[in-house]
């Protein structure tokens, strides 16, 4: 119970640090930390497969890609950003207002808690595998088209053409 609040606060804090950190590398590291916190939430929700996939795919693969690009482009130096303070303020106010409006609209809502779901095997690999390969077979196959597009595109865009500079 208390642990839930602790983990939530930690997640939100590190998410804020992602957005407000000056150095891009710090941002990436905070983002990795946020992903670990979210994986902790998945454990609390008994979604163990998602916990594993989240760490492997997000914190493992995606974040390494980010870190790799940042290091390759050498963005350590703190270049002052070109955005004016007014637009920054407007953006922050807009995001904050959105949250306040959402919470105000839902404050009387009572979704209850999942007392019926205790002991359910929802998040286990077995039940997810059954539904993924039976009901969701078609999207599962078609995601491969997406990966194919992404692969072809990333190679095409990233490849150095004749006469282009290296870096």
């Amino acid at each position, binding site marked *: 119970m208390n642990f839930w609040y602790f983990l939530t606060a930690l997640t939100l804090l590190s998410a804020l640090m992602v957005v407000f950190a000056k150095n891009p590398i710090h941002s990436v590291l905070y983002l990795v930390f946020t992903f670990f916190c979210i994986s902790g939430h998945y454990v609390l929700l008994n979604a163990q497969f998602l916990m594993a996939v989240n760490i492997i795919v997000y914190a493992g693969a995606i974040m390494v890609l980010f870190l790799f690009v940042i290091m390759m482009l050498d963005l350590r130096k703190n270049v002052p950003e070109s955005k004016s303070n007014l637009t920054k303020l407007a953006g922050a106010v807009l995001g904050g207002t959105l949250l306040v409006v959402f919470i105000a609209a839902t404050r009387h*809502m009572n979704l209850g808690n999942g007392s019926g779901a205790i002991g359910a095997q929802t998040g286990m690999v077995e039940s997810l595998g059954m539904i993924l390969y*039976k009901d969701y077979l078609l999207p599962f196959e*078609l995601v491969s*088209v997406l990966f194919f*597009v992404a692969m072809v595109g990333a190679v*095409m865009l990233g490849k150095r*053409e004749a006469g*282009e500079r290296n870096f």
Partner: protein
Amino acid sequence: MNAIIALSLSGIASLFLGFSTNRKNLLITTLLFVLVALGLNLADWNHEYFWFNNMLKTDNLSINFSSVILLSTALVVAISRSFGDDEEHTHPAEYYAIMLFAAAGALMMVTYENMIMLFVGLEILSVSMYILTGSDKRNLRSNEAALKYFLMGAFATGILLFGVALVYGATGSFNIHGIGEVVSRTKKGMELFEGGVILYAGIILIFIGLLFKVSAAPFHFWTPDVYEGAPTIFTTFMSTVVKTAGVAAMYRLLSISFPAVYGLWGNPLVWITCLTLIVGNITAVYQQSFKRMLAYSSISHAGYLLITILAKTPNTNGSILFYSLAYSIATISAFAVLMIVSENKPKDGKPDESFEALNGLSVNNPFLAFVLTVSMLSLAGIPLTAGFFGKFFIFTDAFSNVSPLFKNILVVAILMSAVGVYYYFKPIIAVYMKKGEIAEIQLPLIYKITLIITTALTIILGIAPDLVKNMF
């Protein structure tokens, strides 16, 4: 469904065809692939069928939308001219393959039955378009357009997904008919069930996400930049295929899942439609670049399409299809003329896309001038062209709707059509009245045939609209 499989496989095949050195063959085979997919698509006619545990549903409406999309794809492929002779910097096999995959994604967006399919299809289409927008790698404007499109598109996807998650929380289903059942039950009970608030919040967020994709105001600001920066051939693809697929996906969702809560999305949509029409048309007047003007015109046409979605009459299916078909073929011929004329007359080493580039086109190229005139008249909605009947059907639908709000929309739409006539005549005046020097442009055979097809279709649909309208 078979068309999706065929397109995915032929995309892979056309990548391998890239090993062959003859670029001309690549164009012909790709065209053939798209036409095969079109045939497979039409083979399902009059068979309502659910595929793979209710993931996709093909019915006559979705087959019609798919046909419009595949026809546009075929026409765009036909005017691509194998992307020029620059062996070093263009990769036609990759471009064609990605276009085929993008068409598969667009077909998923018009036949989906489950939110997952909508999401996967939308992403296949969007990711393909990000890549194609940035495909002119050494051109800074193309780079910038790709980044802008990518960041805005990913942002919109995030918003859409948050909406899907909230709707799932409220209804417990990803199936659009399943969601529709729960939503209509809610309405009958006349009271918010637990979590009604998050259902409404979710619907609005899904709505915003989709409006981003069809570039309706106030979510349109990325459109002119991206359309202007992208290579013209891919701008054509974007403003026809992507727009049709987005509107069809939105129509499907709103008419199947959320008709019971019309009040919730109907009223904001009225204002969004008016704003889209006004912003699109008024800003188009001030443009100096023909390409940018066409980008704003595509925003305003999104506004006209939204009117039909709002009107909710039994004729809506036919009107929306007719309008997207008329808009797509007219846009393709306009871009085709722009592309070949601007490349013929470079300014500072880049194609000149301003109105001046068209000056005096009619002297040596009467055919191109005629094609451009017909397409502009059709986009403006002048009688005897397809665009006129497109607008006519839409206004009739709006008129038959009893709600007083619709009178306002009609007034705005008719006023804005009048504004449209003004800026669509600018290129026509440049072509016939202004003095300029354009040498005779040699058109490749397939290019010429495509232009004849689009122009003939525009005129035939403008004289005998019932030919097609009755099919829908």
